[in-house]
């Protein structure tokens, strides 16, 4: 009905934002009292993403969410550690598996869920869906659906940063599968030839759909590919939050200083199928069990617990709070208005060319 639709986005009331990084260095990440707030903030962020994704899967089953829906479950340390290592003036370009990326970057989770629900209040006003989240104000420059297709855009972002002599870094995230496509090669080469401030961050979750990295890539250790561009490159344990954050931050700050591109491979595993409808028959049970034992949230909780910074009671409390928050998020998405069908053509063009009749199809 008409009063269910608005054309102007309804800005959600902000959820609790991700923790702000202090200066990130080994000291700030030590499991010590003085770092407690920040560490627990990151823990909470991982839990929020986990719960968000679990409930997104459920909402998909209820047909509240459609299309493709790719989850970050299992990748939380890589996602949170990688993105929280950035400064607010940095820019993020990423793939379609990016709910957690957006949330970690401070995009309001309500707007993320609303986008998954295809609502006007979504980050992309319901036009993009799960694969195309965006938030210019957070310099979260989008999720993209063509594998490898956003790497050239990250080069362009870094180009603009350098052109304007700004102290920003572009952070470009992509999967292991994306490293075999031509755009990957062109992008890394171009970035190095022009010394652009971009950090390439490969989320190596070992599979591109049903294909393991070693069956698709001549080198299974993806970070080695950077040798062809004479580019500094590291491989990190993507299940270890503190390692991801520390080493990412080191690389990002180096690049900020010298405007030379660098490469990070973060080793992790997705605990669910490629997308929520994938029966996931191509990975062995052994493999799944092995990786589940390395659950990045459990691992971090273990660290927090053994160092006396938190206990199971605390974790339980966080889970409850996060659960409640995600309930609110879903409620918000559910209550939000659909896009107005009259706005179908809106946004096709910018400025004077937007929504002009001569740019519509023939009307019947």
């Amino acid at each position, binding site marked *: 009905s008409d009063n269910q639709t608005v054309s102007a986005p309804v800005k959600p009331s902000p959820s609790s934002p991700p923790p702000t990084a202090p200066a990130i260095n080994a000291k700030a990440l030590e499991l010590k009292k003085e770092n407690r707030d920040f560490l627990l903030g990151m823990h909470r962020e991982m839990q929020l993403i986990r719960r968000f994704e679990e409930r997104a899967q459920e909402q998909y089953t209820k047909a509240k969410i459609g299309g493709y829906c790719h989850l970050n479950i299992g990748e939380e340390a890589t996602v949170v550690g990688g993105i929280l290592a950035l400064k607010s003036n940095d820019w993020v370009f990423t793939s379609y598996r990016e709910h957690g990326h957006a949330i970690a970057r401070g995009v309001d989770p309500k707007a993320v869920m609303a986008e998954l629900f295809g609502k006007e209040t979504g980050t992309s006003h319901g036009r*993009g869906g799960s694969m195309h989240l965006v938030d210019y104000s957070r310099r979260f420059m989008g999720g993209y659906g063509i594998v490898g297709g956003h790497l050239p855009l990250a080069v362009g972002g870094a180009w603009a940063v350098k052109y304007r002599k700004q102290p920003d870094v572009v952070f470009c995230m992509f999967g292991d599968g994306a490293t075999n496509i031509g755009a990957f090669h062109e992008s890394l080469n171009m970035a190095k030839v022009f010394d652009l401030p971009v950090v390439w961050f490969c989320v190596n979750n070992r599979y591109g759909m049903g*294909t393991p990295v070693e069956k698709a890539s001549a080198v299974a250790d993806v970070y080695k590919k950077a040798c062809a561009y004479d580019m500094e490159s590291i491989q990190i344990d993507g299940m270890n939050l503190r390692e991801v954050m520390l080493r990412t931050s080191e690389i990002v700050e180096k690049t900020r200083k010298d405007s030379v591109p660098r490469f990070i491979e973060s080793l992790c595993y997705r605990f669910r199928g490629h997308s929520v409808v994938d029966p996931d028959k191509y990975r062995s049970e052994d493999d799944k069990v092995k990786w589940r034992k390395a659950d990045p949230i459990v691992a971090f909780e273990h660290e927090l617990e053994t160092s006396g910074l938190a206990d199971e009671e605390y974790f339980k409390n966080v889970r409850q709070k996060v659960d409640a928050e995600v309930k609110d998020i879903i409620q918000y998405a559910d209550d939000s208005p659909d896009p107005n069908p009259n706005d179908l053509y809106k946004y096709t063009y910018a400025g004077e060319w937007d929504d002009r009749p001569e740019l519509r199809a023939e009307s019947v």
Partner: protein
Amino acid sequence: MATAVKAEEKLYRVALREALAEEMERDDTIFLIGEDIGKFGGAYRVTEGLLDRFGPQRVVDAPIAEEVIVGTAIGSAMLGLRPVVEMMTINFSLIAYDQIVNNAAKIRYMFGGEVKVPMVIRMPGGAGHQLSAQHSHSFEVLYGLIPGLLVVAPTTPEDAKGMLKSAIRSDNPVMFLESMSLYNTKGQVPEGDYTTPLGKAAVRRSGSDITIVGVSRMAVLANEAARQLEEEDIDAEVIDLRSIRPIDWPPIVESVRKTTRCAVVEEGWSTYGVTAEVAAGVQERCFDYLDAPVRRLGGAQVPMPYAMGLEKASIPTSEDIKRLVRSTLGKKPDV
């Protein structure tokens, strides 16, 4: 068409699978290559089971690298194999567009006939699953435009099987355009080995008031619309274009000369779409017979939106086709 005697109800996807399997049994120069067509079973499960049956030499899981997948097919075809590529969806074929246009389509001509490129690229297109801007388009016209290619879009399980066999046996690069939304549709499939020729349209329904030409899945919807229009005493003839390059003009011309009116419908964008060529060609060939301009209908000219309501508003429905028909007949579009 060599229709065999018996026939059985089968899914469009199964008909395709049978064509692949039967041809591979017949000719061991045929191999399949694509992303996740083997172990994963194919994004749309067309190739399910074929890896087990034919082994990894003939059912090849390739890296995500559309240019070299297509290039591999072309190069191997030049050396005498008969590759069948599965492009996960037509949207990704844009990455391989240079290979298809500048190599597959042109190699024979630019080398003065010294080599040939017998290959098939199968790919589904279309919208309707909330896959949004980068995964929902039709793009038939990108291939229809190119000399050197044959382009078909089967809409029934029978045609899917018969035309895929013809495509595989052809010595030319054939773009075989499937429709995501048709994989789960059923229809009679003749038993035994039969082929359905490339390059031929099919009259799906005869009628006297108007000719509706449908492209890909829209031919199915056109049929539906035509059935419903009976109630309004409108007797529509429906032609399934089937062949996008070349267009099979004779049955279309014959039909329009009889009905004197023509409406054309596609799921993709109609401006510069397949329907543009059909409309232009019909008026050229049937001008003196036409009692009304040839009218067109296509998808909304936007990158496909995600939200269900917006997406629905972007894809032609049988109701839209009925409105198009009515207005082509000079009636009010809405009843």
